[in-house]
């Protein structure tokens, strides 16, 4: 199944070379967890600070058990702030 995977700010270099913008479509096995997808892109726990699925934050302790669905949009930021 396919999900959309997006990285922002200093995490952008971890997207596949040649990626335009922030997003790539990724094929994953049905039943894959959010954490498995994060690991696939070699993003460590400290870097994956704000992790959202369809715009909703998923805390670190829930990422292993969070099972992704087709067409989910995963977006990740390092620790950021502004105002």
């Amino acid at each position: 199944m396919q999900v959309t995977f997006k990285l922002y700010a200093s995490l952008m270099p971890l997207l596949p070379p040649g990626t335009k913008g922030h997003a790539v479509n990724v094929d994953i096995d049905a039943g894959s967890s959010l954490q498995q997808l994060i690991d696939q892109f070699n993003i460590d726990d400290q870097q994956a600070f704000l992790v959202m699925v369809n715009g909703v934050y998923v805390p670190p302790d829930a990422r292993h058990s969070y099972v992704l669905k087709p067409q989910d949009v995963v977006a990740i930021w390092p620790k950021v702030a502004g105002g």
Partner: protein
Amino acid sequence: MAWTEKVLRVNLTARTTFVEPLNMEWANQYLGQRGLGSKYLSEEIDPKVEPLSPENKLIMITGPLTGTMAATGGRYSIVTKSPLTSAIACSNSGGFIGAEIKNAGWDMIIFEGKADSPVYLYIENDDVKILPADDLWGNSVWKTDEMLHQKHQDPLLRVACIGRSAEQQCLYASVINDLHRAAGRSGVGTVMASKNLKAVAVRGTKGVGNIKDFPRFLNATNQAKQVLAGDSITHEGLPTYGTQVLMNVINEIGAMPTRNMRDVQFDGAERISGEAMHQIRASDNKANLTTNAACFGCTIACGRISTIDKGHFSIQNKPEYWHASGGLEYEAAWALGSDLGIDDLDALTYANFICNEDGFDPISFGSTLAAAMEMYEQGLISKAQTGGIELNFGNAEALVKMVELTAKGEGFGKELGLGSKRLCEKYGNPDLSMTVKGQEFPAYDPRGIQGMGLTYATSNRGACHLRGYTVSSEVLGVPEKTDPLTTEGKPELAKAFQDATAAIDSSGLCVFTTFAWTLDDIAPQLDAACQGDWTAEKLLEVGERIWNLERQFNLDAGLTGKDDNLPKRLLKEAAKTGPAKGKVNELGKMLPEYYQLRGWTADGVPKQETLQRLGLV
């Protein structure tokens, strides 16, 4: 110490200046900047005063750490009664002039009365002069700055001044210092113009030497700087992407005010984001972002300096804008971008340049233009009234034209200078004004961030994110993550942010330090610098005192608990997309608990015991 203990009082009517000792009892209760300035204002003017009358006063005030070696210790504030909201106004700015005022030996300058012709104040340490400004009047901020530097032949002169928008009584005019730092909100520049005061030009060479315990201060400031250097937000995120890093975050969670807050997500957000400012343009092989920049004493350097493509339609034939200048912060980018449905980064940057050049608040301007666009699309405003300009959402050419007109108070720009509330009332649809107490919203839709609805509604200067930035917790997870879509715990969260921020706004430090610092990092710096004992607990008490003082001023000015409200759109029209789809802001669930936590009556009036506890009676 840290305070110079000297107040400069300038009577513009009589063109006289006086030196007064700082009221140290008040300094111990209100610290400086926002708190102390609000105390002086409350004591010296009738809260019912007409904001643009000579009876209103305008206070430029530093904090005890302004001008010191504390990281970000360059802030100053302008405190007055706002012509936009008729509430108390306090606008905070960085840059360099705050430190310069302190280095010249002054904690604060109180302007009273009105000059019978344009003047500016020149300060060189103890030498203070009220000088004619007839030649400066009618010029932009940037031209005025240049003329004053030429006139005084001093490249190190620091200038804070108003532009043409303020002279034309745009109700959200700012005071700009150091070319592109702004005491931006609530129309403090409009008040300055009403006094015929064009500029304040300062040169200070005294230094800030009266630190209570200098070795301890050196140690405390060094330790605090290490905290900033070790935090990924203040060390990496803010310097690299600026506040604009939020554009994509807020859009993703469905709290991006879009097309006058009709929508909560903008499909062009990525094209006007902090990341987009780094992208190399195909047209000229350069990025919008030229460099980052720091204010006085700042070790974060979140400021944006940008350059527009010379071939962009906004500046194609205007070489005077082909240089680098103050670029987009997040608050300007959303107001000039998503709220207008415009994703042309260079057009937004140009509009931001003009807001700096002629001194007006891009948040209020963008939000007002958004309301005008919605009324234009509804047929309430005609093409004849806009001077032939198609005022549709998404029209970057209209933005460019309208910002130029507003800068000079010409054509439909004069109407836009009224602000959203008055404009919507005038054209027959007041519900389209996205304001609280007459001030336009900042960049967070409270349907998607519930706590922000409460902080907007209760903000003492009208809708404002800087009066209690619960976004930090609700969205960004700093200091700890809460759920943006629930109301539980938000009254307590809002109060905590409001009180802490009021204290920080009074210290001379920048509130952005608090993405890494807590009050436990700030208190030791103040305690080493200032007489008295300064702990985190005392700072929270000072913050709460300031909040209640401002509240009392507003109540005395005629505002009531009924003004703690949100536009109908945010309370009745559900978000259409994103995680908040189907939700409105649940202000009614939060406000009673908030009043209770504050020690206020059900009508939002501080109880006697609350005022007594805080020493306000």
